[in-house]
C-alpha cells in the first residue's frame, strides 16, 4: 500500500501530448519513487486558468472549481486534492477559501452544481504538489531517496508567480522564497541563491496575446540565470516552463541575445536524482535539451 494517497488534478496542459505532458509524466515518476499514490479526479474540468474572465463571472468561476471538489469528495473521499499546475492550484484554492468562508456563496454554488448532479460539502483540501513534498514528506525524507546526486550542476530556481502569490507556500516569503533552492540542494545540486529574477512574472497568458510586452520579462528571467552562471533553470509552474523555454529563440531575435538555456521542472530533477531514466523524467520533452541531466540519468547508480 502506498504511503500517501491524493486526488490528483493534473490540469489541461498536463494531458497526454499537452504542452506540459513532460510535467505530468515526471511528476508521476517522482511520486512512484516517493511511494505517493496519485489517482486522477474522475472527469475533472478546466479551472478557468488566469485569462478566461471576460466570459466568466464570479459565481461561474467558483462553480467550475467546485465541480472538481465535488467529484473528488464523491470518488476519492478523505483525500486531499493535489494540483501540479500553479494556476489550477491557485484557482482551486481561491474558490475553496471563498466557498468555505461564505454560506451564501456555497448555497449558490451548490444550486448550480445540482445541474450536474453534484454537491460540494467543503471537505476536500486543496494542495500544490510542492506542499505535499515539503509539508507531508519533508526535505529529509525526500533526500533519503536520492541515489544520484546532481553534483556540479547549477540551477536557477525560477519560482515565478502563481505558486508564490497570493497564497504561496507556508513559511516562505513572497519576495524571496527559498523552497526551490532547498529542493535543488536536497537533490545534491547547486542552487544559485543570488538569482534575482526568481519571482519575476513571465507574462503568463499575455506571452501569447501580447508577446512584445511579455518577451522583455522572459529576457530578464533568462539573462539573470546566465549572469549568475546557472546551467539550467528549474520551475514548479507549467506556464513559466513553456514561456521561458519556447520563446527563447524569439527573444534572441528581438534583443540580439544568444539564449539557449534548458528550463526544467523540479519533478524532472527529482526523478533523475532518484535513479529514474531519462524517459521517466521525460527529458526528451525539452525543446532545449537538458544535457547535464541526461548525462546523469545515463550513468549507472553507484553501489
Amino acid at each position: 500500500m502506498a504511503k500517501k494517497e491524493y486526488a490528483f488534478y493534473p490540469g489541461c496542459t498536463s494531458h497526454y501530448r499537452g504542452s506540459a505532458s513532460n510535467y505530468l509524466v515526471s511528476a508521476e515518476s517522482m511520486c512512484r519513487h516517493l511511494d505517493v499514490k496519485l489517482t486522477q479526479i474522475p472527469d475533472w474540468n478546466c479551472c478557468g486558468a488566469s485569462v478566461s474572465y471576460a466570459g466568466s463571472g464570479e459565481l461561474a468561476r467558483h462553480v467550475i472549481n467546485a465541480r472538481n471538489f465535488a467529484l473528488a469528495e464523491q470518488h476519492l473521499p478523505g483525500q486531499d486534492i493535489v494540483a501540479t499546475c500553479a494556476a489550477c492550484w491557485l484557482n482551486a484554492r481561491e474558490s475553496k477559501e471563498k466557498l468555505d468562508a461564505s454560506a451564501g456563496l456555497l448555497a449558490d454554488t451548490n444550486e448550480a452544481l445540482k445541474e450536474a448532479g453534484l454537491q460540494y460539502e467543503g471537505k476536500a483540501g486543496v494542495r500544490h504538489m510542492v506542499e505535499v513534498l515539503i509539508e507531508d514528506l519533508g526535505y529529509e525524507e525526500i533526500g533519503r531517496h536520492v541515489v544520484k546526486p546532481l553534483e556540479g550542476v547549477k540551477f536557477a530556481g525560477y519560482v515565478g508567480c502563481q505558486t508564490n502569490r497570493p497564497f504561496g507556500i507556508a513559511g516562505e516569503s513572497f519576495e524571496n522564497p527559498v523552497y526551490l533552492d532547498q529542493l535543488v540542494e536536497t537533490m545534491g545540486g547547486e542552487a544559485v541563491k543570488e538569482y534575482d529574477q526568481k519571482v519575476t512574472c513571465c507574462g503568463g497568458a499575455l506571452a501569447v496575446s501580447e508577446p512584445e510586452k511579455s518577451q522583455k520579462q522572459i529576457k530578464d528571467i533568462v539573462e539573470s540565470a546566465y549572469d549568475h552562471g546557472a546551467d539550467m533553470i528549474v520551475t514548479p509552474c507549467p506556464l513559466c516552463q513553456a514561456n521561458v523555454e519556447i520563446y527563447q529563440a524569439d527573444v534572441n531575435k528581438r534583443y540580439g541575445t544568444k539564449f539557449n538555456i534548458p528550463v526544467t521542472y523540479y519533478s524532472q530533477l527529482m526523478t533523475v536524482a532518484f535513479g529514474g531514466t531519462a524517459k521517466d523524467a521525460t527529458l526528451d520533452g525539452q525543446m532545449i535539451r537538458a544535457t547535464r541531466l541526461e548525462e546523469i540519468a545515463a550513468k549507472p547508480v553507484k553501489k
Partner: protein
Amino acid sequence: MASDLNAQALARYRNDFLREVEERVDEGEWVKMCMQCGVCAGSCPFGPHWEHSPQKLFMMIRAGKRDEVLQSDSMWMCTSCYNCVVRCPRKLPITTIMHGIATYAHRLGLAPKRQPTRDFSVVFWENFTRNGRANEMRLMLRLWFKDGIGAGIKKALAMKNVGLGMLRTRRMSPFEIFGGHGVKDVKGFQAMIRKAQEIEDRRRGFTK
C-alpha cells in the same frame, strides 16, 4: 444586448459609479479601501505599458469617471502575477478586481475593441466551456486565424519553429483539432455554468 445593459446600468446607478462597481464587479466592494499609496503601480510588471495603474483606476471609480474606466485597456494588461496583491498594505484583491472591471466593461460592450488580451480571454472561455477542458491546439489556431486566413498563415509561419519544436517533443498533438480531450459530462458541465451565470445575473441586478 450589451448596449441595452449599458443603458440599464446608467439608468440604475446614474452618477454613482462607485456603487455600480461595488454591486456589479467581482470584489468591487474593496475599491473604496484603497488608500492611494501607489505600491500596486510600482509593482506591476507591465507598468511601462498601461495608462492607468490600479491605484489610478480606483481613484477614477470614486471620481465617477465611468467611461474612462470602462473603456481603458489597462486592466486587460493584468498578467495575474499577484505582485500588487501581496504588496498592498490594505491587502486588496487587486488582480481579481482588475479582472472584474474588465469583465464588466466587456459585458456592457464598452471594452476597447481589438485589445489582444480581451480577444484571448473571450476565445479561452469559449474554448474550454465547449467541452470542459482547454484545448491548446484549437486555442492557438483560433487566435492565429481570428483576423482571416492570410493573417493566420503569416502568424503560423512566424510561429513555425515553436510549433515544430512542440511537435518534436510530443507536447502538442495535431489530433486535438478533431474534438480533443474533454469531460464526459459536457451537458452537465455547461448546464451548471449557465445556472451559475443566471444566479449571478439575478444577484447583481442584471435581471429580475
